[in-house]
């Protein structure tokens, strides 16, 4: 049971996707209610199936659990496995993925009004890909899911997106693939590097990520090149400045569900990859490049904040705020100390619940007013008090008010950054003020002040369904904010190992 859970978790959504595609249900283009219920049930079951990870990977757990590995195919003498498993780095992200998928499935009927069957199909395929990326423990398994995941998102934005969706999808696809093919070359190089495994007299070829993490020793120059190949792929995916330009386009053109998935899960893959691969595989290169990447992280934080400040479109503002909030994750990761790394992982989860909530809120107001211009609102708190409550709370979580999730992540990251490079830590901490400035001024302009537009007087407040969709995310802000120990205790052992691996090389 233990090992097959990983497998079930990965392929349950895919089976569900096929079920949805071929279900003999007639219905309009909007999809019959039964079809939606079916997909939602699949999402819920997957989420429930992922809960054992939380208990199974309890506080203080070390190493890989739920390991599932079968021989897949071989290329000459290289035996490739289909290997999945959970460790401290991936456990929270997998749970986040299954949760966000459920939320998307329940929030989507309000804005997906055409080709519902295809939508649900791609959404579930996407979930399979995302879970697979986090669980994969073999380079080929990883790369397969990494690439496969792109196609569903391509369709999600391309079919259900906004006016400039074709431009946005192409840009997104080509940026991401350009990065990942470089990573592919590096992977080809890695799997062709023989490793001296214990129990083998001669070095052997293996594509197991775990073996590489333990036994790979590369000359410094090789490490530099491979580090760059991996890092560029991940930095594009994060995205950090200067590879960030695909993100605002993708976010703005994506339907709300696409944005939620993008912000909630996909952007975490870049930072996940940095911690999973770049740090432990190429420790010497990591030490060499770490200051540069910390600077890139801070630039992302500041530049994203400035860009967000200048936006007049709500969704663009949230999109740029993502860039600003992901910068600290890169900063914390390359601070290379326990605070920075744990802060990064918490910040990933925190951003993964707060930003989707923001996108959902933006989507909800867009469905009512069909505009996202900040100037079109004002004084909405009077007509939509529940909406106002959620928006304020989410904004606080996002800017890092103590007691809410954002605070924990950012605090840990900045402590880590201070320890590693005090000046940069100071700049970064000061940069957070900008975050508060643009987010709070957005809240002020949307919610408070006089009601300037007639239309805004008649807006309907959030309904029960919308509140229920937001509720789990809000609970998570509070949970992470108040009891961060439950989360950090699960990740700390794994992160300590990675950190030790890097510092050994010093």
């Amino acid at each position, binding site marked *: 049971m233990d090992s097959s859970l990983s497998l079930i978790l990965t392929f349950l959504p895919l089976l569900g996707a096929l079920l949805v595609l071929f279900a003999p249900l007639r219905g309009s283009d909007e999809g019959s209610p039964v079809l939606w219920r079916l997909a939602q049930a699949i999402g819920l079951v997957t989420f429930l199936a992922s809960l054992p990870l939380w208990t199974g990977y309890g506080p203080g757990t070390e190493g890989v659990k739920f390991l599932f590995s079968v021989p*897949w*195919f*071989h*290329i*000459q003498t290289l035996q490739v496995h289909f290997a999945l498993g959970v460790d401290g780095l991936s456990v929270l992200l997998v749970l986040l993925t299954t949760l966000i998928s459920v939320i998307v499935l329940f929030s989507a009927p309000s804005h997906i009004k055409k080709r519902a069957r295809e939508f649900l199909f791609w959404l579930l395929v996407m979930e399979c890909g995302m879970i697979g990326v986090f669980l994969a423990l073999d380079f080929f398994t990883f*790369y*397969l899911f990494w*690439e*496969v995941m*792109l*196609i569903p998102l*391509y*369709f999600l934005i*391309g*079919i259900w997106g906004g006016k400039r*969706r*074709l431009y946005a*999808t*192409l840009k997104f*696809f*080509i940026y991401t*693939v*350009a990065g990942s*093919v*470089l990573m*592919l*070359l590096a992977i*080809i*190089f890695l799997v*062709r590097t023989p490793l001296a495994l214990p129990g083998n007299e001669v070095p052997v070829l293996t594509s197991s990520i775990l073996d590489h993490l333990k036994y790979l020793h590369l000359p410094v120059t090789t490490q530099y090149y491979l580090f760059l190949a991996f890092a560029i792929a991940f930095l594009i995916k994060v995205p950090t400045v200067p590879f960030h330009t695909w993100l605002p386009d993708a976010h703005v053109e994506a339907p709300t569900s696409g944005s939620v998935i993008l912000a909630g899960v996909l952007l975490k893959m870049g930072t996940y990859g940095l911690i999973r691969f770049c740090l432990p595989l190429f420790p010497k290169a990591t030490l060499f490049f770490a200051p540069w990447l910390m600077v890139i992280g801070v630039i992302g934080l500041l530049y994203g904040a400035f860009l967000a400040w200048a936006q007049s479109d709500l969704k663009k503002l949230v999109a740029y705020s993502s860039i600003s909030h992901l910068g600290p994750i890169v900063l914390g990761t390359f601070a290379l100390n326990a605070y920075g790394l744990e802060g990064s992982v918490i910040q990933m989860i925190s951003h993964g619940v707060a930003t989707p909530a923001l996108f959902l809120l933006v989507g909800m107001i867009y469905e009512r007013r069909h505009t996202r211009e900040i100037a079109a609102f004002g004084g909405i708190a009077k007509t939509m008090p529940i909406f106002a409550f959620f928006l304020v709370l989410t904004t606080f979580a996002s800017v890092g008010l103590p007691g809410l999730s954002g605070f924990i992540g950012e605090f840990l990251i900045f402590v880590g950054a201070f320890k590693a490079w005090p000046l940069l830590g100071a700049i970064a901490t000061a940069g957070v003020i900008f975050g508060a400035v643009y987010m709070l001024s957005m809240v002020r302009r949307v919610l408070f002040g006089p009601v300037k537009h007639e239309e805004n007087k008649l807006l309907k407040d959030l309904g029960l369904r919308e509140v229920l969709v937001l509720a789990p995310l809000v609970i998570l802000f509070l949970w992470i904010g108040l009891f961060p120990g439950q989360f950090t205790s699960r990740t700390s052992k794994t992160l300590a190992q990675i950190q030790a691996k890097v510092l050994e090389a010093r």
Partner: protein
Amino acid sequence: MHFSFTSTDFYVLLPLLFPVFGAILVLCLDLLLKPGKGARTLVHGLSLLSLLGGILAGVQQYLYLQPSHPLPPKIALGPLLEPVFHFQPWTVLGSILLLFLTLISLLLSGAWWKEGDEEFRAYGEFHVLTLFFPVGAGLLLGAKNLMLAFIGLEILSISLYVLVAFRRSRTKSVEAGLKYFLLGAFGAAFFVYGSALIYAGQGNLDLPAMGTILQEGLPQPFGYAALGGAILFIALFFKASIAPFHMWTPDVYEGAPTPITALMSTGTKAAAFFLLISAARLFPHELVPVFTFLAILSILVGNAGALVQTNLKRLLAYSGIAHAGYLLVAYQAMAVGQGQTDAGIALRALLFYLAVYGITNLAALGVLSWIERKDPEIVTLEGLKGLGRRNPIAAAILAIAALSLAGIPPTAGFWAKYQIFAASIQAGQIPLAIFAILGSVIGLYYYLKILVALYFKEGTSSETLSGNGLATGLTLSFCASAILLVGILPDLFLNVLVNVRL
């Protein structure tokens, strides 16, 4: 000198003899039978059967050549065939591949015929000429001697000249035929001229002998042979549509009947690369930069040219030029690779790529020929719009083929690219590998344009658009399933190649 054919010779040539006899039989039947549906079915079935027979004979030979086979291979070719013909695992695989590509093209062509066309009268000839294609290609592939290679090249070319111009009622088809013929004649002339220079240099036309001369680096005759080799290669580059010898490709692909485009784009490319492989040891190391340059140029020209195309056949023609570039990357790796292992890896990568590219391109063009007769507009990106709703199956097959051409997992195309890049890295050609892989990212743009047209755009009409012919539909489904299956379990096919070496 006395010429005699031994029974072993017959055995070795069996995969090619099947289609030869099939073609002769079809030719006779076509004369004797009254034209009609029954005769057509017979002709079609007989052609397919003869190709299938050839494939089975090839498979039997391949199994026989395996080291694990209980009887050790003691194939001693007769005095006639021995000096001119290779009989090695990779040549056998090559002929199986060529026969297979022809078989699929012929199956796909079923949808292309339409009652009342002027060409319908030439149904038999179409089959005869198609059957001769793998024969010529097979001779080219097995040739150890340049004269035999030339004969193979001519058999192949002449059947294609006619087939390209097959739709006499359409100007484009005739124009394409003429273009292909004129440029092809140039190519053939280059081939002959190169052979003549080689003869001047080394005193005979054998490929292996030439290799030793070049390796020993004899001073005077060497000059002629090297020059001749270079000129000969131009002829092959022309056939494989490698830039800058690619100019004819888009026009000819566009004008030719779609099943023939499918056959040309896959079969001819494979045949040309097979002779390049035979001749791999022929050129001196100094030529490696030339291959590098041509690979880069083909990838650039192909990808850049495809970006602006609106006609799908032209788009696939340019994409074919880019793919020839990727193949050349592997070929270059084979040429520079140190020792047998590297060369073996590169050769396997080449064969795998040719097979995968073949089946993928056949699927893509097959979809077009499947629907073309119902809606001729389908060959343009404009006409493809909304196909995802009008004919989901055809759209899905085309989408899978496009993703495979782009090299996105889990399709076979990904593993094909993987093999090529791995071979290139193994041979230490990392800059070229990086260039090729970035080139393939440019390629994404236009493959995605196909997906955009299929799924993201609404067409002018929303009526269902059925394909023409069940057999074609099944063949296409087979191709698409094969692409996915090899994509998920690549060693199904890679294992076949394990023992292949030069």
